[in-house]
């Protein structure tokens, strides 16, 4: 699929900022348009496209990067974990890797099954505080970055799954436990490669969550976004589906054992 890169109303997310382009915005991911295509009847779709995020620059971040997104009707986030396994084990040999990938001194074994660990278990195993304490003490992200992420996907790729509900603004909550969002992140060698959800298809709930995220954005003094009305209207006809966003630059970093994202792009912003 190809969807417009410049859109009038990005999905409001607390910590993702769109770069303005005239009175519209460069998209931060093709998510909203891709879901409208699902709603219009396409069942299995993918897109590789540039995405833009304001202020993101570091060893693993570029304000303009390349994303692969794919969606599948009638499936959930567990199906996408299987597809990630197929994708990576399928392309690793094409990039000259055998059953293992050497990355940052780690020898990552691609043999199935890959590790699947919940966010709660990861806090118990790797952090000094529990997930609940981290949320309560407002240090969830700090603990994630310093204590947990560097330990994920070291000997084999790891799916970190079942995020706290408030950490999945566009994800469906688990039926048996509404405090948990059906969301996962894929890690290899401590590197975050992909983020996936079982998609939320309830337009009323989605509007509430957008409102919540947008309120937070405005309370932080960020520029307001218009509500993506057409998306919310069409969401009511979207079938149950799962979707995933995988960073292509990060994937190439993994396959080429690159130290920084700068090594896998033609020009960094600083070089322009």
């Amino acid at each position, binding site marked *: 699929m190809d969807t417009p890169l410049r859109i009038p109303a990005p999905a409001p*997310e*607390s*910590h*993702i900022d769109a770069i303005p382009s005239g009175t519209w915005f460069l998209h931060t991911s093709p998510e909203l348009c891709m879901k409208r295509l699902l709603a219009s009847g396409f069942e299995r779709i993918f897109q590789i496209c540039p995405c833009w995020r304001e*202020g*993101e*620059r*570091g*060893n*693993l*971040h570029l304000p303009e990067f390349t994303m692969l997104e794919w969606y599948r009707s009638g499936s959930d986030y567990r199906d996408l974990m299987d597809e990630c396994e197929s994708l990576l084990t399928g392309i690793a040999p094409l990039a000259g890797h055998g059953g293992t990938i050497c990355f940052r001194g780690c020898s990552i074994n691609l043999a199935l099954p890959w590790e699947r660990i919940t966010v709660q278990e990861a806090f118990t195993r790797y952090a000094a505080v529990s997930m609940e304490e981290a949320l309560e003490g407002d240090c*969830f*992200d*700090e603990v*994630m*970055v*310093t204590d947990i*992420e560097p330990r994920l996907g070291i000997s084999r790729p790891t799916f970190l799954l079942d995020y706290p509900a408030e*950490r*999945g*603004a566009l994800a469906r909550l688990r039926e048996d436990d509404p405090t948990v969002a059906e969301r996962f*992140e894929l890690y290899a060698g401590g590197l*975050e490669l992909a*983020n996936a959800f079982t998609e939320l298809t309830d337009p009323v709930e989605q509007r509430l969550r957008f409102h919540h995220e947008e309120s937070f954005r405005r309370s*932080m003094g960020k520029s307001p976004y218009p509500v993506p009305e057409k998306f919310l209207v069409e969401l009511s006809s979207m079938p149950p589906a799962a979707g995933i966003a995988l960073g292509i630059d990060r994937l190439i970093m993994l396959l080429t054992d690159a130290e920084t994202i700068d090594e896998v792009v033609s020009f960094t912003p600083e070089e322009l």
Partner: protein
Amino acid sequence: MYTVSDLRKGLKLTLDGEPYIVIAFEFSKPGKGQALYRTKMRNMINGTILDRTYRSGETFEPARLEERTMQYLYKEDNNYCFMDNETYEQIAISEDLLGDTRYFLIDNLMVDVLMFGEKPIGVNVPNFVNLRVIQTDPWVKGDTTGSDSKPATVETGYVLRVPPFIEEGELITIDTRTGDYSTRVKG
């Protein structure tokens, strides 16, 4: 005032009233989470390393540092005395703060003193200084051990390796950046 977007290696800022220099910096953002600015800093007075993680919106006081050219006068107990030749103001700097730099201080040497407000926090000596050798063993002719250097002590008490032909009483040039022997001063 600095913001998190100014953070980079080499930036000098004030934390809890003391000057720090950023020695490592990383932008992080866990999936869908907030931007975090992970910073490793060294205290410019006592060398302590500090790890701090900042969020968007935090601000920092720059470290107001000034370099003053001063002359080394003399040592008293464990303090080294320097004078600003324009204002005649004198300051004392402790041996601890000087570290190995103290070995390169010869009387009347002009140095750059790094000041944090009124407080001296470091001394930069010239890249090369000349010091007299006060002790070294003579070179035994026909030495076949193959050793191409020997220890020598200079007038400040500093011990270094010098070529075998250097004799007691000679003046040698030392590279203060590495602490190594550079050349012999003729005459």
